[in-house]
């Protein structure tokens, strides 16, 4: 990918500095917390066995792989590099420089050489013709548009070869890390337990390299109204979706856990107060609350406009505010479920016998209630996570979501909605937004299912089968 080298070279020559916006900090902080948990879990045998079960199962392993690609894109897009005299760019922007800078004037279809709409063109001095113009970036390297098919085949072949190369290198590196000899690596990597994992890794490698090779000269997913590459926009949308879902879930979770468990465990007036709170909150339409919050935030931002350095910061604050509003309104359903489950668990006999043994409330909650609430929390959180990703799209569609300058799936869909009525239809923005969301939501759901099963002793790695009778 020849475009990359000059991009990195330009970064290297400029004075380097990192700039992190509030959501970047929070998102990277959340990932750091997850990493700290991972580090401690790796040293505890039971947790290690459970997580290794997640990774070993085909569904869990592949979901992890897909999620880590999404996460990698989001992380790259959350680290901003300062540039002299210019707005800062994220690492992802720099990696995708050819896509970012390869602008057209307006819509163009995937792999098109010409624009989607006719324009007045000056064929010769004084001779104006209305025709489809050649694109400035897509297929520019071809002398004749008829060579398109050959060029695509050549690029796919190159991408396949590159993908295989990357796959083989990765395989060898992974086998080396797992302590296999080179010979063992070659003869044993196709073992049944890992077959699905290797296949998925292979498909991912091939997919990334082929798309990479194609994107170097073409708009793989076409361009949007202002001529921006849709593949670039889709990749940028990953961060928005993930940041929103992760941060909103992180706000939801503690509120729902504390209030739900408190209401279910304490009962009495505490329960009454918490019930009134969530009943009231959930009876106000969520869209209304979010619209109100978006309006007051807009007001606040325009008053403070002078204090805000950049448009990027402004858009970022709007994203953060949306996370907060979605988080603060989204805890009611989980809270309700947790309250009921806690009430059920508190009357169960193992809790009564722990109380009879003199265990203090804190120990009861930590040892008996929380571990048994976890399946519910995991499943509900992931379902909410999925609906948050989708909610972003819906809210942005009705203009109370993220800032119009923020690349997001919602903005992509919003931009595409009017063009769906056009002939020939402009489908690529919508399709790429849907594809991006679908992959994330599906992977998150499969991952959550495997995690829940692995952490249930009745199904998990510690299940050994019934041993004898009394």
């Amino acid at each position, binding site marked *: 990918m020849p475009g990359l080298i000059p991009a990195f070279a330009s970064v290297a020559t400029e004075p380097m500095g990192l700039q992190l916006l509030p959501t970047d900090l929070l998102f990277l902080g959340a990932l750091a917390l997850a990493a700290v948990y991972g580090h401690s879990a790796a040293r505890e045998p039971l947790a290690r066995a459970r997580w290794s079960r997640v990774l070993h199962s085909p569904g869990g392993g592949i979901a992890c792989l897909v999620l880590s690609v999404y996460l990698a894109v989001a992380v790259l897009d959350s680290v901003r590099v300062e540039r002299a005299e210019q707005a800062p760019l994220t690492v992802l922007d720099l990696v995708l420089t050819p896509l970012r800078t390869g602008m057209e004037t307006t819509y163009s279809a995937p792999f098109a050489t010409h624009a989607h709409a006719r324009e007045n063109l000056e064929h010769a001095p004084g001779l104006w013709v209305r025709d489809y113009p050649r694109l400035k970036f897509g297929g520019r390297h071809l002398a004749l548009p008829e060579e398109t098919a050959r060029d695509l085949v050549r690029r796919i072949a190159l991408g396949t070869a590159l993908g295989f190369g990357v796959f083989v290198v990765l395989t060898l590196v992974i086998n080396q890390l797992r302590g296999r000899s080179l010979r063992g690596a070659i003869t044993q990597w196709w073992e049944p337990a890992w077959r699905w994992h290797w296949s998925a890794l292979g498909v991912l490698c091939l997919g990334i390299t082929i798309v990479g090779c194609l994107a170097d000269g073409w708009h793989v997913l076409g361009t949007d109204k202002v001529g921006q590459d849709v593949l670039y926009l889709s990749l940028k949308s990953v961060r928005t979706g993930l940041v929103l879902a992760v941060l909103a879930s992180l706000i939801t979770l503690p509120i729902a856990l504390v209030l739900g468990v408190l209401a279910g465990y304490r009962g009495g007036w505490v329960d009454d107060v918490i019930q009134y709170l969530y009943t009231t909150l959930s009876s106000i339409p969520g869209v209304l609350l979010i619209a109100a919050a978006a309006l007051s935030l807009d007001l606040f931002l325009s008053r403070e406009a002078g204090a805000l350095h950049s448009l990027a910061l402004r858009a970022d604050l709007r994203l953060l505010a949306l996370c907060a509003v979605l988080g603060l309104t989204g805890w009611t359903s989980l809270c309700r479920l947790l309250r009921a489950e806690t009430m059920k668990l508190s009357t169960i006999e193992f809790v009564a016998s722990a109380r009879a043994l003199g265990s203090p409330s804190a120990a009861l909650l930590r040892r008996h209630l929380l571990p048994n609430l976890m399946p519910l929390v995991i499943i509900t959180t992931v379902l909410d996570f999925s609906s948050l990703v989708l909610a972003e799209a819906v809210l942005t569609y009705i203009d109370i979501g993220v800032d119009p300058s923020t690349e997001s799936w919602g903005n992509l869909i919003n931009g595409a909605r009017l063009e769906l009525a056009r002939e020939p239809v402009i489908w690529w923005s919508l399709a790429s937004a849907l594809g991006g969301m679908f992959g994330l939501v599906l992977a998150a759901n499969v991952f959550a299912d495997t995690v829940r099963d692995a952490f249930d002793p009745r199904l998990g790695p510690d299940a050994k089968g019934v041993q004898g009778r*009394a």
Partner: protein
Amino acid sequence: MLEISNLVLVAQTQGASTRVVDDLSLSLKRGQTTVLVGESGSGKSLTALAVVRLLPPAIRVATGSVRLEGRDLLHLSEREMNSVRGARIGFVFQEPQAALNPVMRIGHQIGEALTRHRGLRGRLLRERVLELLAAVGIPEPQRRFKDYPHQFSGGMKQRVMIAIALAAEPDFLIADEPTTALDVSTQAQILDLLQATQRARGMGMLFITHDLAVAHRMADSLVVMKEGSVVEHDSRDALFSAPVHAYTRHLFAVSPRLTPSALLTPSPVTGEPLLAVRDLNVHFPQRGARWWSRTRSFAAVTDANLEVHAGETVAVVGESGSGKTTLGRTLLRLQPAQSGRVAFLGRDLFALPPESLRRARRELQVVFQDPFASMNPRMTVQQIVEEGLVAQGLLREPGARAAHVGNLLEKVGLDPAWSSRFPHEFSGGQRQRISIARALAVAPRLIVCDEPTSALDVSVQAQILTLLKALQQEQGLAYLFITHNLGVVAQLAHRVLVMHQGRIVESGAAREVLFAPQQDYTRMLLAAVPSLP
């Protein structure tokens, strides 16, 4: 009439298949009751389900045939089978609670079977339903017709179930443990009803039970099953007078009997009682339908007085709803009391500040009924048993705790190496042993046992009772033993309290209460217990 021959049922679990019923042949005659007796896992319920083709999905019929008047039921289409179920073969399940639809009126649930199999509608249907309700002994059928299942007691629900099973006048009735979930007095009524109906209609009945005394009460002929096979099959009198197979004899030996010979010699009652309860009242507040409506209360325990001395077993018996479990929970301070005094080791249990109460709990422990609900499924046996030690701050060093847990497991008859396993890997009896080990861990003086054996098979029950008695002799433990099973009481208790509607109606030495009762209620209770010859 109903001929089961060479029936083999196979359970499919992850590639492996096991025979859960092995080569069973059985012939049921009209006008006769055949009783299938066996412990859990013997395949008796599966056999019954196979007859009506309602086996769970993981289990299938490998070979064999079930013939009803020559027609092989196993080869009928699902549609033809539907006209056999209900119409030719009626079915009564163990849990009337689960078998009735909670949002459908009783009359309609009975009527459904009549409409389906007899095509009755309108006034005729209603008249027939009222007749059936009267026939199964439901008072005021006119009024109860429109009631919902939750408005009926357990015994009444089982009567409704029987009415549904009888609605289409089947030739055969299959009753799968129909009285296991009921009290002894209700059980006696339901057994009477089933027997009278069977005789009056000349039906054939397949009656399934784990209780030999109930089997003796009902059977014309008896089939003893063990691990999927028939071990003995004979007429009732022949089998009860001279059981041949070793397993049948073992079942006879472990079944609790209400005979004076089993009684323990009353322990000498000396000195201060360990636990003394004076005028204890426990009320449950019942919240009104709306939050502003006045709260009323329901008296669960009224003016209870009792004493437990060191080293003795006091049994609390009574039917469900008599307040015996509430009494136990209140003594453990798991349930607040309205008034009364509980002195334990000379201290007033209700007046103790939290910290002293926590320390006092060490001496007063509990073993619950349900071996599946009484342990956290996410904790290992080690964590479960050491919970009291951790809570009380005893043996803070992990090595010492592990050694202590190992000793306890050995004491209750389990392998110490099993301490890293999870509860689901154990059978009901083994779990109950773990529960006992958990209670013993903090070296208590008194253990409240709340129906600790009622979920277990008779042979496992006998083992647990033997273990409890051995521990009592070894450590001088006292038990407050809550149970509805009077046969168990006769084997274990030194003294007995009889509870009825929240009051202790009779108390005294086991010999007097069980064999020379003073109160009518106690006499009624004892008369209802089915007995072995």
